[in-house]
């Protein structure tokens, strides 16, 4: 917990430094039409830098670890959600959201839930088809499509 707090705080300090540099690049002074564009950004960066540095220092001084950031065994399910989700987003770039969603639903149901193939087929095909009807057909909101949809004429 303590380590996580410190790592997070240090990362925020780094963000603060980047923002301060960007503010300086844009100018923090006064031009003919009021404050320059970097003015607000610069002070935000300074504030972030000071506040997160203070968090890091206070955490360092506090000592003693109270509880872990993630209890052992609890992190596995989180990764099991995160990795397939990332994979789905990558896949979306190639085959569109409907197909990648179907693959993702099917894979997750099989891998984590160990559901029967019949149920997997119904859900993983039914949900994207329903989504397609709602978004593309009824509300005319386009979602990312791939070769399959093109072949079907959309």
């Amino acid at each position, binding site marked *: 917990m303590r380590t996580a707090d410190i790592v997070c705080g240090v990362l925020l300090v780094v963000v603060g430094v980047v923002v301060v540099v960007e503010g300086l690049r844009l100018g923090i002074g006064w031009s003919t039409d009021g404050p320059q564009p970097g003015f*607000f950004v610069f002070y935000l960066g300074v*504030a972030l830098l000071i*506040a997160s540095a203070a968090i890091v220092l206070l955490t360092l001084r506090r000592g003693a670890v109270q509880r872990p950031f993630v209890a052992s065994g609890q992190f596995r399910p989180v990764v099991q*959600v995160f990795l397939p989700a990332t994979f789905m987003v990558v896949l979306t*770039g190639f085959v569109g959201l409907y197909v990648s969603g179907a693959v993702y639903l099917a894979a997750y149901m099989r891998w*984590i839930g160990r559901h029967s193939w019949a149920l997997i087929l119904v859900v993983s095909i039914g949900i994207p088809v329903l989504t397609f009807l709602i978004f593309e057909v009824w509300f005319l*909101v386009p979602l990312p499509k791939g070769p399959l949809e093109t072949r079907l004429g959309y």
Partner: protein
Amino acid sequence: MGGIENLLLGFQVAITPYNLAVAVVGIVLGTIIGVLPGLGGANGVAILLPLTFTMPPTSAIILLTSIYWGALFGGAITSILFNIPGEPWSVATTLDGYPLAKQGKGAQALTAAFTSSFVGALFAIILVSFFALPLAELALKFGPPEFFAIQLLTFSSFIGLGGGSPLKSFVSIVLGFILGAVGLDVVTGRLRLTFGSIELMRGMSFIVAVIGLFGLGEIFLTVEEGLRFRGVTPRVRFKDMVATWRELLGYWRTFLRGSIIGFWMGFKPGGATPASFMSYGFARRFSRHPEKFGTGVLEGVVAPETAAHSAGVAAMLPMITLGIPGSPTAAVMLGGLLIWGLQPGPMLFVEKPEFVWGLIASMYTGNVIGVLVVLFFVPAFASILRIPFAILVPLIVFVCAIGAYTVSNSMLDIWFMMGFGVLGYVFKKLDYPLAPLVLALVLGDMAESALRQSLIMSQGSVLIFLQRPIAAVITVAALALFALPVLGPLLRRPRLRPSEATRT
């Protein structure tokens, strides 16, 4: 025109068959969203926002507010039956609601929760109906310094009243403003914090941030607890309802106290959660049998639910009158107004009275429909959580991805959503509050231009915020709230802190 006439005009808008149907659909969707883990009021509204682009603005806002009411009701269902607070302000409801459900009194607990939600909401709506117009008229006199002072007050209340670490709340606010500054500078047209990326020019969409922070982040937290829900399914029979209502009459003090606390806290940002805990704390304090709290007493359900709903409604008041949202959900609705081409703020009362009063009237109709729908269909909503987890989780992630993409048809937004999901998870674990980050992200541009215009008016002197009477009062109040964490230990108020309650 008087207030009553305006309200009647609003009812003419809200009680058309189409708008009533929209409200029913919104309530049902909202309750489902409130029941599902990872989907709450804010991101539920965010995901469905793109579907409203083709609707008339008044019907669109009625749909979104109905989803909000539904989500508030849905949160109570999961807290009582499954001990899972769907929203942060339902945490206090679990304290007595779940023990009641385990004793087989689920029906009573649910009836009490829905009734108190309704009473709290109604109380707040009546106040909103009366205060909206005077407040908007006052706000019409505001210039940039007054608006900036109000923004200052908005954020100071997170630090002064938010509970938890003030330093971390501050970091959240600043980070939100920084993310909000990404993209085109509204005043000079220069690119800021884009680091050469063309896609970043559009800026960071707060809707995507809400979906990531509250949706994905919440899913990560939920799966940590294990992949199963255990709960009780009750049937709410009419007999139980009547018996509960009779018992509830005796708790009128708790209702009144909860409504007032809720409205007072909810009017200021981030108020619903502390309001529910404060109301619970007060109910226990004034109770004749405080030791029974936590073991399953109806009062322990009534107090937080009344306050949470009253606060939820009160959060809409600053949004419609000042254009400053009181909660993340209100912030998303504000984003909706901008997308539909309406400028939020006091001018709305002058330019679009049918929109504003239609919205206020729909709060009455929405809550009446809401309480009826949830009372009669509780088992149906509760059965949603019987769907296996391995289907629910990917389904919610899929829906979140769709929501993020449809905001501006951009693949990059789905990646941002993933990033915000991780950020939400880490921040939640480290006790950084998320609501101020979202509000800062929404208000960033407005706050910055108000600040810059004020400084132009004063030739660069910050004293302008203390020289104009209205601005001065608000600024001093804001500074006092900023200082509260330092002075706090000296005048600590009796209330249960959310972080302590969740751990017991």
